[in-house]
């Protein structure tokens, strides 16, 4: 029993099904006895199949009457079959239109898909029970599963379902045999469309139900016009960029990156998804010693690329250490950690950052302008995730405009460019590809990778911390 309520805020309008009305009009035209598709009673072996039409006739009619070419007509015909307006007599499970002599028949309007009403589960249960009555064991595996599910879920209605199934079965028996066959075919076709067998695509898939009927014309009331007005005003207020400018940026991006796109240019040594050989991933690991040439080239494109690549960032760090200006990057990294870290650790992180970078006389004091410094320090009183955003952006810009270009001209970068390897492209034969496929192995457990990362971080933190002079001298004295 369906639960009904007066104030039903349910979403029950199906979107994207408004094409059904138009399809219906076409089907009515199609079956017109004078101008429609020519059908006849086909003779097959001993039996006569009443009023069937062939696939090629359908395609020919669509091509002529709707002025399409053959491929489009076939696609349109397949749509008709998929929606259930025409059903195949041979191979009833596959809802495709074959443009040959295979036979189809029109579905009776009772079984047409209608936008307003979905095919109900109660009806499906009755149908399955009917088939079970007709011949035991004829249900497919997925139908049996559905039967069991429905039996469990509609248990309280089961008496009704069985009784109705029996009565419908007997009512069907009262008809002539040929009509019985036709009716059973139609019912079966209907349920193939609305309860498709698994791993088939259903044309009835439409996503979520909507709250408002998409077919109904919206009344142009005062509210409607008010809404349209607000929408248009907001659209005008949005900031605009000239299309020449944005297109120019797009073109620039594409020319820079086009050699790095694995879809356009085959990646070296070989695309692991295609050849099952993962040397590409091994060579491009975040902690690899010697990066590939393509990777190093990417670092020169923009500062953002450099920072995002862990290997690039490490290289940049080495450069900064030589220049004794590592505090900028350290601050930037600390701010990132604050942004992405847990809420619980935020206050202690903020403390640490203030002591290390922002306090006057701090060991790694960063050089930002007075206004930003004032804002940040004030914000630190009530710290939140993005409290260091202004300072972080400033530092980023500093590094980008100044340090980055020095890095690109530095011996560090030039050296790594020389050292970078350019792997030779693989050339696998079919047999080797098969072998690769068989030798696929899972990669390192991500937990282990994460643990390694944590260890590295700890080591780096210890190394970057302020050097304890006393301990250093003590160790030196000891040696003496």
């Amino acid at each position, binding site marked *: *029993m369906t639960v*009904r309520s007066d104030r039903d805020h349910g979403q029950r309008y199906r979107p994207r099904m408004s094409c059904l009305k138009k399809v*219906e009009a076409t*089907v009515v035209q199609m*079956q*017109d006895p004078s101008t429609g598709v020519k*059908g006849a009673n086909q003779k*097959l*072996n001993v*039996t006569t199949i*009443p*009023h069937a039409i062939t696939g090629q006739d359908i395609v020919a009619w669509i091509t002529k009457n709707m002025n399409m070419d053959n491929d489009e007509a076939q696609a349109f015909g*397949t749509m008709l079959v998929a929606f259930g307006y025409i059903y195949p007599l*041979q191979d009833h499970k*596959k*809802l*495709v239109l*074959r443009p*040959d002599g295979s036979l189809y*028949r*029109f*579905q*009776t*309007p*009772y079984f047409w898909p*209608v936008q307003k*009403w979905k095919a*109900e589960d*109660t*009806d499906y249960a009755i149908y399955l029970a009917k088939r*079970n009555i*007709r*011949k035991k064991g004829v249900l497919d595996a997925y139908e049996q599963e559905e*039967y*069991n599910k429905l039996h469990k879920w509609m*248990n*309280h*209605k*089961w*008496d*009704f379902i069985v*009784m*109705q199934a029996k*009565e*419908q079965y*007997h*009512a*069907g028996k*009262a*008809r*002539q045999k*040929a*009509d*019985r*066959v*036709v*009716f059973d075919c*139609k019912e*079966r076709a209907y349920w193939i469309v609305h309860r498709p067998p698994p*791993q088939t695509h259903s044309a009835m898939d439409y996503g979520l139900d909507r709250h408002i009927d998409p077919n109904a014309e919206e009344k142009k009331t005062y509210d409607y016009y008010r809404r349209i007005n607000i929408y248009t005003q907001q659209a005008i207020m949005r900031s605009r960029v000239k299309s020449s400018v944005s297109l120019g940026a797009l073109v620039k991006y594409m020319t820079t990156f086009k050699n790095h796109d694995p879809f356009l240019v085959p990646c070296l040594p070989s695309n692991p998804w295609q050849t099952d050989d993962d040397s590409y991933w091994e060579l491009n690991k975040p902690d690899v010693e010697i990066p590939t040439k393509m990777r190093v080239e990417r670092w020169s494109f923009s500062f953002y690329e450099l920072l995002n690549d862990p290997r690039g960032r490490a290289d940049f760090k080495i450069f900064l250490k030589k220049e004794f200006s590592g505090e900028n990057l350290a601050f930037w990294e600390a701010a990132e950690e604050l942004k992405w870290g847990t809420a619980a650790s935020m206050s202690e992180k903020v403390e640490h950052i203030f002591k290390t970078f922002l306090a006057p006389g701090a060991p790694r004091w960063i050089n930002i302008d007075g206004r930003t410094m004032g804002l940040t320090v004030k914000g630190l009183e009530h710290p939140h995730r993005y409290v260091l955003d202004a300072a972080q952006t400033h530092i980023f810009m500093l590094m980008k405009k100044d340090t980055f270009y020095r890095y690109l001209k530095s011996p560090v970068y030039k050296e790594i460019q020389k050292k970078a390897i350019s792997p030779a492209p693989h050339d696998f034969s079919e047999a080797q590809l098969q072998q690769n496929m068989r030798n696929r192995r899972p990669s390192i457990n991500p937990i282990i990778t994460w643990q390694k990362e944590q260890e590295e971080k700890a080591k780096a933190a210890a190394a970057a911390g302020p050097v304890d002079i006393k301990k250093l001298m003590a160790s030196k004295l000891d040696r003496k």
Partner: protein
Amino acid sequence: MSRWRQSVVEIQTRKRQVNECERAQAALSKVTACFQQMATSLGSNMDGSFLREELEETRTVAHKICSGLHRRLLSLLIEMEQGQEDKEQVERLWVMILSSLENFQRDLKKVKVLQEIFPLTQRKDRQALINAGYAGGTSEVAARAAMVQTPWLSVEETASPDLKNHIVEIDVLLEEMFQRVNVPLWSVEPTQEAWVEGVSTQDGGQEEDESLEDIMEVEVVSQNSTSGCCNHHNCKVGCLLCLLS
């Protein structure tokens, strides 16, 4: 009044009423099933004023049974006390009649829409009827429905409404039933087990039906055995929206 105090007459009356309701329910099932069979011919080449008349008659019969059954069952349920023996039976009937009414109402709505889409007022409307392959009419089905008799002896004169009002009337009936009777629907246990219904057909019927299944399987004209949906040689997908074609 506890059951010890109910007189024999009262118990017998109640039993009779419950049996009446059960038979009415069976009759209603029969009529709605016939109605559905006939409704499937609507809009097809077998459609005609004859079919529509038959549909109307069947609907009238169904309406008679419905209203009588509804009234009787309602009174049974209202005067039911705790711990009655036939409580389960009556509740089961209750669920069945609710489901039947809903089912019937769905069919009625479909019939209404179909009759609007395929009006038969003019001669040229007949061209719009879909040639669905039916050869014979549904007169046997209609006869079957007409044979159903209301099981109560008294003749009640209730005016039978037209299609639109009938749908609305069922809505009202259902509302009323929900409001006046407080029965949790999911607590009703059915008497039928799963999968059992296939066992009880007679042998003759079974044979005929097996050949029915065979007739339905039209011999597949052997085409090139593409397991995919289109003729592309790489298409292993059995789906409709293959992008390879």
